[in-house]
């Protein structure tokens, strides 16, 4: 009789106790189009982070199932990221009460679209790839940046990559170190490329380098740059800087510079740092001719947790992760870590917990988020290409 009562009591309790609910992380990346390879690698990185957490997370003492959805902010019609798609993703995320963290975006232009909406709704946003300084830092972009992205007045946007003001400075310093005196600056006429080229130019001029001509914008989709290379050859510079990506002409430019008799090397920012560069230019054009700055330490140089990630990725997917994959992984890891530290299962608490991330020991090293939502990690690496592989040269910005 006593057993039956206990059993009944247990059953009654089990009936009223809720089953494990779900919390979600979503990502919004341009999976359709030329960034497909890079972004697929990033999605894989996030998946690995979720798996490492066992597909569950404990918030304020209660266990939840952790789910992940990968959303596309590019459309087939556009062939690249689309403002409406990104806005729709942001609104979808806000409307879904299970979503606690929004990982995105890849393009700074797309971030500009969704940041105000997400900030107004108080949903945490962590970017693995946005580098436009104006998104978080005052005084660099427009007069009203970054306040325009924070209508609620609070910081809810974070990024694990160093912004371009740092990368431009570091690149210029490295150029000077390598003995360059005259530089030719190009950009791809996109937000990211033009931004970093401007940063490089500012810093190069500050360091006393001669910038030949102004910043010249190229056509990212042109079939070749032979005529432009003639101009560069005539200018007799020591270094060519291209603010752009592998999707907007980096590889073709490297190839045409090599084939056009230009002795100067080509330097580029972190968007160069993926296998598409080798694929597009061929090993011969890149051999010891290209310099790439990259936030943090490259995959091969990773030690500790970074190396573990790279090895695990290679074991699971059979190839090296792309450059930004580890950033996406870190975004997910820090999101999960913040969720465990959150005081309650609501978005405001999660934002606070992310903002409070201090001395986080992750795959990128030990870092914190500062008051603007930027990472405190200022380590950047200088790399070159040898034998069809990126080769680490030295740490910059220390």
């Amino acid at each position, binding site marked *: 009789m006593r057993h039956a009562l206990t059993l009944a009591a247990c059953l009654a309790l089990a009936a009223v106790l809720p089953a494990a609910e779900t919390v979600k992380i979503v990502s919004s990346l341009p999976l359709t*189009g*030329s*960034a*497909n*390879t890079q972004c697929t690698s990033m999605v894989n990185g996030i998946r690995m982070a979720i798996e490492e957490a066992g597909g569950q997370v404990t918030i304020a003492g209660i266990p939840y199932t952790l789910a992940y959805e990968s959303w596309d902010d590019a459309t*087939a019609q556009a*062939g690249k990221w689309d403002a409406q798609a990104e806005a729709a993703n942001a609104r979808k995320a806000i409307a879904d009460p299970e979503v606690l963290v929004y990982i995105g975006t890849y393009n700074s232009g797309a971030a500009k679209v969704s940041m105000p909406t997400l900030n107004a709704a108080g949903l945490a946003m962590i970017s693995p790839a946005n580098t436009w300084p104006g998104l978080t830092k005052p005084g660099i972009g427009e007069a009203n940046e970054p306040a325009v992205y924070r209508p609620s007045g609070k910081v809810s946007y974070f990024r694990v990559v160093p912004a371009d003001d740092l990368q431009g400075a570091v690149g210029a310093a490295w150029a000077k170190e390598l003995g360059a005196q005259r530089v030719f600056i*190009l950009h791809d*006429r996109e937000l990211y490329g033009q931004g970093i080229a401007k940063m490089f130019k500012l810093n190069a001029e500050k360091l006393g380098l001669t910038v030949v*001509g*102004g910043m*010249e*914008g*190229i*056509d990212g*989709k*042109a*079939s*070749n*740059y*032979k*005529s*432009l290379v*003639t*101009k560069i*050859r*005539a200018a007799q510079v020591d270094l060519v800087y291209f603010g752009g990506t*592998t*999707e907007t002409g980096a*590889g*073709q430019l490297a*190839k*045409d510079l*090599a*084939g*056009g*008799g230009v002795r100067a090397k080509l330097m580029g920012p972190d968007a160069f740092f*993926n*296998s*598409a560069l*080798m*694929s*597009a*230019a*061929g090993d*011969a*054009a890149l051999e010891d001719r290209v310099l790439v700055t990259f936030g943090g330490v490259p995959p091969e140089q990773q030690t500790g947790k970074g190396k573990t990630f790279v090895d695990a990725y290679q074991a699971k997917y059979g*190839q090296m992760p792309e450059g930004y994959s580890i950033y996406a992984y870190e975004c997910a890891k820090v999101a999960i870590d913040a969720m465990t530290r959150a005081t309650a299962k609501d978005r405001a608490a999660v934002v606070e917990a992310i903002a409070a991330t201090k001395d986080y020991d992750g795959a990128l090293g030990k870092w914190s988020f500062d008051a603007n939502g930027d990472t405190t990690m200022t380590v950047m690496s200088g790399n070159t290409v040898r034998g069809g592989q990126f080769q680490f040269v030295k740490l910059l910005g220390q």
Partner: protein
Amino acid sequence: MDWTDLIAQCLVTGVANGLIIALIALGYTMVYGIVELINFAHGDVLMLGGFLVLTLISACGGEQASPWVVLPIALVAVPAFCAGLNWSIDRLAYRPLRHAPKLTALVSAIGVSFILLNLGLFWGGLDLAVFDDGRSASAKKSVPDLLPFSNLLGDDASVLITLKDVLVAAVTLPMLAALTWLVQRTSLGRAMRAVAQDPVAARLMGIDTDAVIGRTFLIGGALAGVASVVYALYNGAIDFQLGYRAGMDAFTAAVLGGIGSLPGAVVGGLLIGLVRAAMETLVPNGSQWSGTVVFAVLIVVLVFRPTGLLGSPLREKV
């Protein structure tokens, strides 16, 4: 490098680029002349031809392939492939719309363009060394440099002419001659001109218009195929989205020269190539404005000669 060197280099690069555009424009203008269709898929046929070139190079040894082996094979196989592809597209997508409004065929061409685009994306995902083992399908693919980079004028010369530039001329100019011969001297050419002028009258005269149109697509495709071989070897890289830009350039060249006019396509292509080369080499920040200048030239030409540089004035019948 002084001014004369710069201008000489401009000419070399401009003519080479222009001839490639001209070759693509010829295919465009031939098809337009006969069915009045802006074939948006033409650039993507070129793109797929480029992927075939790269695959052939891979089959012939990749980096170690000899140009003497690859070129003959490519110049036969790729035009054949592209011709067949173009013909099939006409048969499947455009022929059923022959009597539909013109814009319907245009949208159909856009649809075909998207389909070919996706096929190019998948092709780049094949597990071949030239495709980087298919890992970065969406990335640009480098074409191994079968022809050396070395300057034919000597290593220290200011002006750079390589075998690649020679290749462009060596392939394009005979093609132009062959095409002119075809259109002017053969019965097929006569039939094509007849159908272009007046399809109804041509049929009344006993010409099988459908067959002639089909053959025009074949030839247009073959031209795209040859252009793709030259494109791949000259530019040294292909990607699945190159069709859009190449098609746009070719279309502009065709219109600039007068749609339906074969010499016009060549003139248009050369003009665009030279204007671009001049902008990018001689003008500070020229690359930013070269697109605008090309179209501005086009608009100015069309304002003074509404049917293009060499186009025949349209005679409207009441």
